[in-house]
């Protein structure tokens, strides 16, 4: 499930990346999964562990998936006796920090699902970073209790 941003790029592109301002930034996406939802559900939540192994912060400036109309980063918090969900725009991935998107905390929300998600299905999610890189995350649909 580990995905490296540099995968698929040629060595020239890699060299340019090394020379760029965010040269040291590399984002790893691991343990990506989507919580099982009924086939008629228009939404689903994806969870992933993102690690910025570089020396400078990066930001997610756009998110997409071929299986959803929109993808948004949502943070959950327990306040006033209820779960509240807020959208985070341009989420930061601080240098050297692992950011966990986990149940009851944060998720990538897939909205306007284009097809039912079945357990075991692999769903690609693309994260465009401020550094110009595009990260492909493959999330597997899992049952949970």
């Amino acid at each position: 499930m580990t995905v490296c941003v540099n995968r698929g790029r040629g060595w020239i592109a890699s060299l340019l990346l090394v020379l760029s301002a965010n040269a040291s930034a590399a984002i790893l996406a691991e343990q990506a999964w989507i919580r099982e939802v009924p086939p008629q559900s228009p939404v689903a939540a994806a969870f992933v562990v993102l690690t910025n192994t570089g020396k400078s912060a990066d930001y997610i400036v756009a998110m997409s998936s071929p299986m959803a109309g929109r993808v948004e980063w949502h943070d959950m918090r327990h306040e006033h006796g209820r779960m509240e969900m807020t959208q985070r725009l341009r989420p930061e991935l601080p240098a050297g920090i692992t950011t966990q998107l986990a149940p009851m905390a944060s998720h990538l929300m897939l909205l306007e699902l284009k097809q039912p998600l079945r357990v075991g299905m692999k769903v690609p999610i693309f994260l465009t970073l401020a550094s110009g890189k595009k990260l492909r995350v493959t999330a597997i649909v899992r049952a949970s209790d």
Partner: protein
Amino acid sequence: MTSVFRIFAFVLAITTGLVGVAVWAKKAYSEPAEVLPVLRLGGNFELQDDAGRSRQLSEWRGRFVLLSFGFTHCPDVCPMTLARYRAVLKALGKEANLLQPIMISVDPARDAGKVLGDYVRYFDPRIVGLTGDLPTLAAVQRLYGAQVVLSAPGEPVSVSHSDYLYLIDGQGQTRKLFDQQASVAMIVEAIQLLQREADER
């Protein structure tokens, strides 16, 4: 010979005493007289299922009910709750008929009709989805101390709601609240506790 017999008798008496104390201690500490208190919230309500039929909580008297509030556009908490319902039913096995899991949708505008029923039955056909008009739902939420906030008409739709699971006994009394950290085993244990209580009556 007599002294050997005396020593043997003494050792036997001490051993018997220690075993007795150990048995008593095990019984005293591993089988506490656990009783779930009757909580001062909850009560009967009348809502509609996806076929438009009126359903009251009192309909399930004599069985236990697991109740939660949710909605079908909920990506994290509600599918997790419903998957937990499924796991609890599975864990109860043959005793699953003791339990009726219910999710009340607080978003009737989007969960009217078949949508809610299909959604909850995906997880297990025994789960019931109920909803109603907003004033009726507000009254049920007040009864259960549930916090629900819906966005105002015209604004982007957002729903936030309490995520507790309520365990209701055979008399319709709320006996335990579980938060989302509660394991399936904890819920099953509480249901079995209520069953033992019912059996002793």
